[in-house]
């Protein structure tokens, strides 16, 4: 088949053809691997038409050849892949892709080529693909689900090809507020923006197309006595210049949410490689808070389904007209217009004026009349009123239309009588307009059915959002301008409180148009079978017959029918098909459309890029990494990392050929035998001061703190009101009514908020201030028998003597030239100190510690060694031994749970029956029978191992390690009534049928008397 070019010459058209292309600028591009040329200003769709290419893809289910149907974002068929490699982007609408030099694009859903497609076998076998096909076919046997059905469905279900590598372009997001946001830059939107702006409002007006003006270039009518286009150009220019209106083209408003939160997708640079390489982001996602939203999103033309209405060359009437006016292209050499309204007559006269013959205007209405009809008649176009297309002939596998068949049509919906065949190679079809109510509905807006339009229009919205113009069902230009000015003025005043005089709307007028006649379906005269499909949803290949079958099978609700047939569920979300689908359902059920109802409109209005959703948060900004002052030092020392919250902590420091296990064992033995250094800076630190500081501590800890003397510390437990343990740490008394609380690393922010919450909301009479100082201080553990010797080498005024600074003591002073707080606390059971220094001094001080410790064999140790050291001592860790359902009593921490204090958080809950019950899980130690066997973390203990599942689970491992100190494995576990089972063996079925047996023992494995820390 030869590809004939369909570019219309400008000569003789009075400059009304090809308005947005620049015929002096040729642009080369590639389509399906072949080189073509178009003009600057072309879309991919128009450039393909110009090159005579009408088949741009294959349909999803039947793989039928498909061409362009619409224009802009309403296009259901022409989904293409653009770019290649890591810039490949699937599922773009060819009608929106702007041509630029070097553009490469290809058809989707076609293998091996769009011209010859293997999947078209589906089409021949289409009796096998009724509605609900997937539900009916991929059912049994169950063994087929994974191995047979899933691969088939996955292969068939994909649309387009994903990019091959990381996206090289940048994306970003932008947050702003405005007084009035206007959606849509057609006549109504611009008028509303102008009226709002006249009140001094901050206005954003966004339009999804490259050009402003909506369909003003093809809609006829005058504003201020001149062609619409003139007013559009002048108004858009003056708004852009004003400085209080942000005018945005290539920007789709994709979602409207609560409290007028609006999401806009701006295609900043994808249309222009030069812009992209100059640093502009490819896309930008706008998050806008608008005081007032005005929706002027226009209307989408709907087709009239007729037999084989999906053949390439069948196009929406406005699409034909817009392609001609803007790009100077037509879908063919001889057209037929099929309509139920006056507007399509404009298409016929425009075509003829551009030198494209129109074989017939086929109008379903019996007696169309009015100025547009008269104009067509006087131009010499033949009109067949009271008729409908009842068939379509095509050659080359359906790719090339040769004629349509027409027959008399009556309002009862019948075609009968003599058929007539009219030669043509394209059809412009118009079935009326559907207001774009999507945004109005995203956030709960309701709809009314408009009888005159035979479509839905918005009801008033609960939020400050109003819909105007065609989107509100207002089509006459005069009415539309009056409505738009009033809405813009009202919104501007509501947002700003302005009292400015209302800007007068310019006089506008358009030709009067007669009423449309509802038609949802033009029946075929032939046999109603697979050769005569009436497509409703082009993208998902849903036909009128599918909808009727669903009805017969009992799918009454439109929501069910939608899911069963997939009507409106494709990437275009039924922009051209939903209302027709409802019309067909109305016909087959006998219920009026409003009773059938609509399906839900959900964001986004059109698909937008994942890149813009990720925005800046890619690569190193994907997620926060919090660094201690030693981050670089740890990295230089070869640390492996453990993420704890957003922090990166050193897990261990392998040396040379050492693996992690060897490094951890070495670090543990260094602490037990020499001295080790730990970066404990992530611990939460909170200063608490005020007359009631002690009383507050008594209320939030399970044990008593108000008796603590300055310079002394105490280990405390915190419960929530449910009685569950959720944080622990040492709090020290800094002075009278002045304390420093330590929390877990994970609890640092949470606990300060917890204290604030109780102070602000419950104990409002307490005079206490709490201030988080976590990051002010870098804190280093110095642990091991040589800890004191190391610290005493540093110059300063701190006395580390056993009596001067005894266990659980604290002091402040100067050490190695730095202000320090010294705490004698131990999480390893060894002689141990924690030294806090101002963070900016952190690294220098750490290096001094290493230097001083060199002679003692000092080494840094990481978080894993820390955990093994504490587990050897039977110390609990929040998050290991606790999981939000564990009380201090479960853990045997009764000594720290006050019986005397009248009230503290969680106290009352401990007496509730489920917490006071006998059969709770209790913390115990475990020694495996085989000392070399380390139990898996979280392993379940069962009362009895059996083949039959489930087994009776009686507990779980909470901490489990290899102890180099004891040269065997150790573990802690929560076991039902565990403390009564000392000495008993319990069993753990682990992976691969293996069973591990372990003895229940005291959880303190090492230095039971605690002598090592008290030297």
């Amino acid at each position, binding site marked *: 088949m030869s590809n004939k070019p369909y570019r219309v010459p400008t000569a003789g058209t009075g400059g009304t053809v090809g308005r947005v292309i620049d015929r002096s600028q040729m642009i080369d591009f590639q389509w399906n691997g072949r080189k073509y040329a178009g003009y600057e200003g072309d879309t991919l769709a128009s450039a393909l038409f110009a090159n005579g290419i009408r088949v741009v893809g294959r349909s999803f289910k039947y793989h039928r050849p498909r061409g362009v149907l619409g224009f802009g974002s309403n296009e259901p068929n022409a989904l293409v892949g653009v770019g290649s490699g890591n810039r490949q982007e699937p599922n773009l609408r060819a009608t929106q892709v702007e041509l630029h030099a070097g553009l490469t694009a290809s058809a989707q859903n076609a293998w091996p080529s769009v011209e010859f497609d293997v999947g078209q076998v589906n089409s021949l076998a289409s009796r096998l693909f009724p509605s609900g096909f997937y539900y009916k076919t991929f059912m049994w046997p169950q063994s087929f689900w994974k191995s047979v059905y899933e691969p088939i469905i996955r292969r068939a279900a994909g649309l387009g090809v994903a990019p091959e590598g990381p996206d090289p372009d940048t994306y970003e997001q932008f947050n702003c507020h405005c007084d009035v946001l206007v959606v849509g830059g057609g006549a109504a939107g611009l008028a509303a923006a102008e009226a709002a702006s006249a009140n001094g409002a901050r206005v954003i007006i966004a339009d999804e197309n490259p050009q402003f003006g909506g369909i003003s270039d093809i809609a006829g009518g005058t504003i201020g006595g001149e062609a619409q286009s003139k007013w559009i150009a002048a108004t858009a220019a003056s708004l*852009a210049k004003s400085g209080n209106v942000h005018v945005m083209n290539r920007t789709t408003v994709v979602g409207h949410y609560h409290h007028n939160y609006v999401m806009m997708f701006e295609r900043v640079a994808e249309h222009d490689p030069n812009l992209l390489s100059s*640093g502009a982001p490819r896309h930008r996602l706008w998050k806008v808070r608008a005081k007032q939203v005005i929706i002027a999103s226009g209307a989408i033309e709907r087709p009239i389904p007729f037999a084989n209405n999906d053949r390439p060359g069948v196009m929406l009437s406005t699409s034909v007209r817009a392609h001609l006016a803007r790009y100077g292209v037509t879908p063919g050499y001889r057209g037929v217009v099929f309509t139920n309204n006056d507007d399509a007559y404009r298409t016929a006269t425009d075509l003829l004026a551009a030198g494209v013959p129109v074989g017939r205007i086929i109008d379903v209405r019996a007696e169309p009349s009015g100025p547009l009809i008269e104009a067509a008649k006087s131009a010499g176009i033949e009109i067949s009123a009271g008729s409908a297309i009842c068939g379509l002939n095509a050659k080359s596998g359906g790719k090339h239309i040769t004629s349509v068949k027409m027959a008399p049509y009556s309002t009862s919906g019948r075609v009968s009588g003599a058929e007539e065949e009219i030669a043509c190679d394209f059809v412009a079809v118009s079935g009326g307009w559907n207001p774009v109510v999507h945004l109005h509905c995203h956030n709960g807006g309701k709809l009314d059915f408009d009888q005159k339009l035979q479509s839905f229009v918005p009801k008033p919205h609960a939020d400050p959002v109003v819909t105007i113009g065609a989107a509100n069902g207002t089509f006459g230009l005069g009415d539309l301008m009056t409505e738009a000015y009033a809405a813009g003025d009202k919104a501007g005043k509501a947002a700003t409180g302005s009292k400015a005089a209302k800007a007068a709307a310019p006089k506008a007028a358009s030709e009067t148009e007669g009423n449309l006649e509802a038609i949802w379906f033009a029946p075929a005269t032939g046999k109603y079978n697979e050769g005569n499909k009436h497509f409703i949803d082009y993208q998902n290949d849903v036909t009128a017959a599918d909808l009727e079958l669903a009805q017969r099978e009992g799918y009454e609700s439109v929501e069910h029918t939608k899911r069963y047939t997939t009507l409106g569920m494709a990437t275009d979300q039924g922009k051209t098909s939903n209302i027709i689908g409802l019309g067909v359902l109305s016909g087959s059920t006998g219920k009026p459309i409003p009773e059938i109802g609509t399906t839900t409109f959900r964001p986004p209005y059109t698909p937008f890029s994942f890149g813009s959703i990720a925005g800046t948060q890619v690569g190193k900004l994907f997620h926060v990494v919090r660094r201690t002052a030693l981050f670089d030092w740890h990295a230089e020392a070869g640390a492996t990392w453990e993420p704890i919250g957003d922090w990166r902590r050193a897990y261990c420091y392998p040396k040379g050929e050492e693996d992690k296990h060897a490094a951890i064992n070495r670090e543990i033995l260094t602490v037990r035998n020499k001295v080790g250094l730990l970066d404990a800076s992530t611990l939460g630190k909170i200063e608490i001061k005020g007359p009631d500081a002690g009383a507050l501590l008594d209320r939030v800890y399970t044990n008593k703190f108000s008796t603590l003397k300055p310079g002394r510390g105490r280990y405390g437990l915190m419960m929530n009101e449910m009685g569950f343990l959720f944080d622990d740490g040492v709090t020290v008394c800094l002075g009278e009514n002045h304390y420093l609380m330590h929390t877990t690393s994970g609890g640092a922010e949470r606990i300060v908020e917890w204290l604030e919450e109780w102070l602000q909301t419950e104990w409002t009479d307490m005079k206490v201030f709490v201030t988080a100082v976590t990051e002010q201080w870098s804190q280093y553990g110095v642990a091991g028998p040589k800890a004191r010797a190391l610290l005493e080498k540093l110059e300063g005024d701190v006395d580390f003597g056993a009596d001067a600074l005894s266990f659980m003591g604290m002091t402040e002073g100067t050490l190695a030239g730095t202000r320090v707080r010294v705490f004698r606390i131990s999480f390893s059971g060894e002689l141990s100190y924690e030294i806090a220094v101002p963070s*900016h001094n952190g690294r220098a001080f750490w290096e001094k510690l290493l230097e001083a410790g060199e002679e003692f064999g000092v080494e840094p140790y990481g978080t894993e060694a820390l955990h093994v050291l504490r587990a050897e001592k039977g110390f609990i860790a929040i998050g290991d031994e606790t999981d939000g359902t564990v009380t201090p009593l479960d853990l045997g921490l009764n000594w720290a749970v006050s019986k005397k204090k009248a009230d503290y958080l969680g106290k009352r809950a401990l007496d509730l029956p489920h917490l006071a019950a006998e059969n709770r899980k209790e913390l115990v130690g475990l020694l495996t029978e085989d000392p070399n066997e380390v139990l898996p973390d979280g392993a379940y203990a069962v009362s009895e191992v059996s083949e039959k599942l489930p087994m009776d689970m009686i507990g779980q491992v909470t901490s489990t390690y290899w102890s180099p100190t004891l040269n065997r494995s150790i573990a802690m576990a929560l076991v039902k009534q565990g403390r009564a089972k000392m000495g008993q063996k319990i069993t753990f079925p682990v992976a691969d049928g293996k069973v591990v047996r372990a003895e229940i023992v005291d959880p303190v494995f090492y230095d039971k008397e605690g002598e090592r820390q008290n030297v």
Partner: protein
Amino acid sequence: MSEALIITPLYDREAPGGLAIIMTEVVDLGMIDLRGLPKDKKFMDAAKAALGIALPTAPRTSAGMGDIVCLWMSPDQWLITCPRKAVGGLLAKLNASLEGIFSLAVDMSDARTIIRLEGDRVRETLMKGSSIDFTQSGYEAGTVRRMLFGEIAAMVHVVSEKPDVFHLMVFRSYAHHAWDWIEATAMKGSEVEFLSSAEAPPVV
């Protein structure tokens, strides 16, 4: 205390070429976090006596005189900035003045870092990471605003206007994240020019 020991969180960072704003880490400012009740006259007087200026009580404002600037953080919390070298002395003076008065003053000089942002594009750069619209009225010189920036807690202080100078304050552990974020969003070529006079858009 030896100044040579001080290593600020962004000691190894330098702004790359091609930024639409000027970005530097402020290394010579110290910070004191002060808590007290504004309705407690004794507290307000004692603070004023030590600082030389009255603490601002209007939300999101600041007050400054000479080297000392007080930023409103909360109805009972202020952040005082002063030269880093002067923090020890000022804190001692505050504590002496506030003796016996319900209050809490702590040195936070090392808890946060301050990133100084300068230029016409500062406001919209911040709008790429924060839900706040800094182009609205209410963000004149002296304004203080705490916020969520990207994923992190941050605070801005509008130091001066024309040209805009902002201090972005973040906890030290997040300093690299904040710096990286601004580098990524302040590149030339990515200007939004929100609500500025523009050329006419193309029309159909």
